[in-house]
């Protein structure tokens, strides 16, 4: 049985008005003249003890017998008999306690009290409240008893005991009174009709010393604390400096107490004045609008025990910065996050370097591509232009001959056969180009065109971000599979996307939409829709002819090669201006027969 909360406190209500509350281990004495004096103190004393779950022992002597004490107390405590039965109070005459066995034995009595205290605690009482009358004391026992009282006085402080020793003024001389007062912490004396408390001078001195000692201790602790604080200040300062040097800020979050603390460097990184109030919402405001959803999603996931180590952009003073954020969260038994420590690292420079190297790589790739294409185009152009030149001059020569009065028909016949010959030659060149493209290891596999589109989008993702293009996809989840060469189809899609970037270069609102649609039972259609400058209507037919280009550096081969690739797949490629802005390029691919529904 646990003692109740009230009982577990060290401070006890003595029940005696002028004393009030006293801690366990208090040792008092009362000087009395009459029985009335005794009862004035002891009745409220025991009433309070019984009420407060204390085990009580009342050792009586003349002029109050145990029997009389019990009866008097019963008037105050109605259920006293039950309490006696329960073992909460014992009222004994002095000869059943102090002089049990015929004589007073200080050690036995002391051991007895300690035994009773143990009993009290074992039974679930808060401690032992006792009183003992000393009228039985013979003068021969006085010295012995004084030593006993001194022992009690020095030992009682460690026990859950409260004691009042009662002394008859009639039996005490001045010397005895001094002894008694010296051996108790307080003395109760009646002056006229009022009880007074006399505090032990030694105790006062001890208290004073204790107080002084305490003050010294406090001063010492204060000095130590100051040193610790200084050390802490230095550590914090070092930490702050380290954070500045490393571009790393930190933060602390107590979810239960709703506390969010940032280090100075974190404040600096986020462009807020140090110490300004913080909320998660305020943090989100600084995050780049395009990254907010991502950051929020990841943070919510982190609260569900997902790792949180992300890179995102923030906008500080109108400038874009990149930060890497990490957090270590603590969770309670119910897996609810309680608190966490996070770091924020400024990785703008690293990102810039990455971006530079990516751009450089891209430029190199572009140069390589253009060079290869350039060589191919030059060779091809020459091969095609020779027969075209011959056809052109022959046809125009024929025209002139026919305009003469007597045209030489033999000559014209010869010209015509030369034209036919050169036309065949031109077709052969084009056939060679087709063959070249077909021969470049077209590997047909069954594939989902949505996957191919997603792969290409991954390739151009960073371009999309940098060029500030808003990309949307409307990919039909149930698009049937097609048979095709993954690499070649990627090239076509990539080329169409890159063309759209070019077309949107100088427009404000850059939108790119990728679509897949099932046209009918035989074909699927892919649409690449942009919000660019659109296609000049006069060019819409020549768009797919070899060497047609509107770009300054363009070779005019991209779209014609795309057309050859798509046609090699059994599909077709065309373009249309959108009704509002920009153009859409479409291509179809036949649905794989094995996989069509």
């Amino acid at each position, binding site marked *: 049985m646990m003692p109740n909360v009230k009982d577990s406190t060290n401070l006890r209500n003595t029940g005696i008005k002028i004393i009030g509350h006293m801690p366990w281990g208090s040792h008092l004495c009362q000087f009395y003249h009459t029985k009335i004096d005794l009862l004035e103190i002891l009745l409220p004393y025991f009433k309070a003890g019984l009420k407060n779950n204390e085990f009580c022992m009342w050792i009586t002597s003349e002029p109050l017998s145990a029997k009389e004490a019990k009866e008097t107390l019963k008037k105050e405590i109605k259920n006293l008999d039950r309490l006696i039965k329960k073992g909460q109070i014992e009222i004994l005459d002095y000869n059943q306690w102090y002089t049990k066995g015929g004589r007073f034995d200080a050690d036995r009595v002391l051991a007895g009290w300690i035994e009773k205290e143990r009993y009290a605690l074992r039974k679930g009482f808060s401690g032992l409240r006792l009183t003992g009358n000393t009228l039985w004391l013979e003068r021969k026992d006085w010295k012995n008893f004084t030593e006993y009282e001194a022992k009690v006085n020095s030992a009682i402080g460690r026990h859950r005991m409260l004691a009042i020793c009662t002394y008859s003024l009639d039996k005490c001389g001045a010397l005895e009174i001094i002894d008694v007062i010296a051996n108790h912490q307080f003395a109760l004396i009646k002056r006229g009709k009022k009880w007074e408390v006399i505090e032990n001078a030694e105790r006062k001195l001890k208290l004073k010393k204790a107080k002084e000692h305490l003050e010294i201790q406090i001063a010492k602790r204060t000095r130590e604390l100051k040193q610790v604080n200084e050390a802490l200040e230095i550590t914090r300062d070092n930490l702050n400096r380290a954070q500045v040097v490393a571009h790393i800020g930190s933060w602390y979050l107590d979810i239960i107490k709703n506390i969010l603390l940032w280090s100075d460097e974190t404040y600096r990184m986020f462009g807020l004045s140090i110490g300004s109030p913080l909320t998660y919402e305020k943090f989100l405001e600084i995050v780049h609008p395009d990254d907010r959803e991502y950051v929020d999603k990841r943070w919510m996931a982190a609260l569900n025990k997902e790792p949180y180590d992300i890179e995102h952009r923030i906008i500080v003073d109108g400038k874009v910065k990149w930060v890497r954020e990490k957090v270590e969260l603590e969770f309670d038994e119910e897996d609810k996050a309680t608190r966490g420590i996070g770091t924020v690292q400024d990785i703008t420079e690293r990102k810039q370097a990455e971006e530079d190297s990516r751009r450089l790589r891209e430029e190199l790739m572009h140069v390589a591509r253009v060079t290869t294409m350039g060589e191919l185009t030059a060779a091809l152009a020459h091969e095609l*232009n020779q027969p075209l030149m011959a056809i*052109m*001059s*022959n046809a125009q*020569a024929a025209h002139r001959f026919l305009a003469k009065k007597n045209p030489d028909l033999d000559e014209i016949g010869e010209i015509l056969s030369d034209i036919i010959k*050169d036309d065949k030659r031109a077709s052969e060149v084009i056939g060679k180009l087709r063959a070249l493209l077909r021969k470049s290891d077209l590997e047909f596999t069954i594939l989902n065109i949505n996957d191919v589109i997603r792969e290409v989008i991954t390739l151009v993702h960073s371009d999309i971000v940098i060029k500030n293009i808003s990309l949307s996809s409307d990919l039909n989840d149930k698009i049937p599979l097609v048979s095709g060469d993954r690499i070649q189809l990627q090239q076509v899609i990539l080329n169409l996307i890159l063309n759209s970037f070019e077309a949107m270069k100088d427009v404000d609102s850059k939108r790119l939409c990728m679509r897949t649609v099932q046209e009918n039972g035989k074909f699927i259609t892919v649409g690449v829709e942009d919000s660019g400058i659109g296609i000049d209507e006069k060019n819409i037919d020549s768009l797919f002819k070899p060497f047609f280009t509107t770009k300054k550096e363009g070779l005019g081969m991209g779209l014609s090669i795309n057309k050859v690739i798509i046609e090699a797949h059994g599909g077709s490629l065309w373009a249309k201006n959108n009704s509002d802005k920009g153009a859409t390029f479409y291509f179809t691919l036949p649905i794989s027969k094995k996989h069509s529904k």
Partner: protein
Amino acid sequence: MKKSTVFIADDDPSVRKGLERLIKSAGFKVEAFASAEEFLKRKPYRNPSCLVLDVRLPGLSGIDLQKELAQKSISLPIIFITGHGNIPMSVKAMKDGAVDFLPKPFDDKALFSAINQAIEKDRERFKKEALKSKIQRRVNTLTSREYEVLRWVITGMLNKQIAPKLGVTEKTIKVHRGRLMHKMQTVSVADLVRLTQKCGITPAKK
């Protein structure tokens, strides 16, 4: 007037044949060559003409041929044609005196406009050359003393000023001047200055 000739240098037989037919149909004389080397073997032509030259030729390229002709001081107008023209190359060719740079396939209008321009340029050149040789022939009839006096006369000096320079009398100069004016078939000093300029005779140093 003799017929103007258009030379063609292109390694592609079909193109060569087609161009030859087309240019002939417009009434020009045509001579076609399959390489630059073949063209260089031919004797220089004595009448207004031009060269339709493919940039890319096996062996000596069209551009190399242009350089070679310039070194030999053969100022034959050139029209470059190419199956894969690029801008830097055409700019260089034009700077070096080409009349035109035509990317294949081109139509007859562009070709004949270039040919006519080239022939006209060459004709002008021939005219200048002819005039120069005519004057030169007259100069050749002068005695060395007359030639000397001529170089003083074209400085604009008077007889009495020229006489002390040559250590003779004013009268002697007057006689020489009369003769040389007659031989040069001219009546005024101004006309004489014009003629001498055309064949590169410089005035004497005062």
